[in-house]
């Protein structure tokens, strides 16, 4: 079992199926089990690919700002700063609850 941080919420999760996972890695978790490590490099490349989609006229300088603004989660940050997940780095820092059974 390991401790997994879901965006600030920490839960015990069985890591038996992802023996390659180390502290600081990200995983997909489903009903208390980590099923797969998230390949961060691939994730970033995928996002970059998505960002480039759509008509070329949209690639304006203001796009950076729009992306940053729209990429924020739809909630206000905690005024006391207590929500920063970086403060709660635990062994196996790994969010994302999978959907679907």
């Amino acid at each position: 079992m390991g401790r997994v941080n879901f965006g600030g919420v920490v839960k015990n999760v069985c890591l038996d199926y992802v023996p390659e996972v180390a502290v600081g890695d990200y995983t997909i978790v489903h009903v208390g089990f980590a099923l797969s490590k998230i390949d961060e490099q691939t994730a970033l490349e995928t996002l970059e690919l998505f960002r480039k989609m759509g008509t070329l006229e949209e690639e304006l300088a203001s796009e950076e700002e729009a992306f940053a603004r729209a990429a924020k989660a739809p909630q206000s940050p905690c005024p006391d700063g207590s929500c920063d997940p970086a403060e709660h780095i635990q062994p196996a820092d790994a969010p994302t609850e999978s959907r679907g059974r």
Partner: protein
Amino acid sequence: MAEQVGADNSKVVETSSAPDFAGWSCPLPLADYPTIVMGHGGGGKLGNELVEHLFLPAFRNPALENLGDAAIFELSSGRIAMSTDSFVVQPIFFPGGSIGALAVNGTVNDLAVSGADPKYLSASFILEEGFPLAQLAAVVRAMADAAATAGVRIVTGDTKVVERGHGDGCYINTAGVGVLRPGINVGPHRAQVGDVILVSGTIGDHGMAIMSVREGLEFESQIRSDCAALNGLIAEVLDAVGNDVHAMRDPTRGGLASTLNEIATSSNVGIEIDETSLPVRTEVQSACELLGLDPVYVANEGKVVFFVASEAADRVLATLRAHPLGADAACIGQVTGQHPKILVAHTAMGANRVIATQIGEQLPRIC
């Protein structure tokens, strides 16, 4: 008095050794009974001792001291509001609060959102035989603190005890009376097309705080219940804009979604909200993701939803944000004449979805 309860992420603290009665006026008789026994509810010597040495010192006020069958007090003339609620939350201590704090603040808030100035409360306890006295003491202390903060007095009460296995530790009922603000005219039926909808702060904190310590679903987090008395905050808003507030309610069980749907139905109007403007703590959002819940359905115990005339919206927002309990207040939507009785949310994707009234409890016994 045992104070090691409920202040952090820990679950209910079981007090093992003899409770600390140092804070009580005359501890010796109670020290013989570390747990509640049937006699405490019998109206005899043990029950009297409980009142004299536990309730009275905690709730100390003139109306209570007489220990009559009824509390006698005066209220300024005008209309009176009365409200009652029972509290069965499990566990009774949770991050950020307790059943005691809920019992006081819950009734205070029901009066306050009706436009009344809360004054006096009753407190009735149904205790299970075997319930630790130290926990009762902590609950009572929490009630006394909440009452003091809210500016209300607990003036009458009752205690009954049921056999072991026939209760669940501690149930509390509070009833309260308050004086309606003269000229006030708020109600769930009074929302009007064009009204702006505001919420006083982040949603979902209370329900997720309970979840975090509920057996089978526990998780570690910094989430704390938002349990608080709202009469001060509401008074400031009413002082600022008066009857430009058309409707207000505290979104407890069923969350923001249920409250908005109720008002939409009562007033026969449609509501549109912007999902990206809903204030939600990151951790609450994460916990909801984890458990497959939607923050709009999760209970709150220290928030108010306001429906205000559009020209008053900015003033209300400023008033809320200037108050400690309203620092995260936000405008979240508007009342519309379209799709009456239906709540529509504009999503981050730019699409619209309906937020339906929830069927049943997402999680039982959260208040």
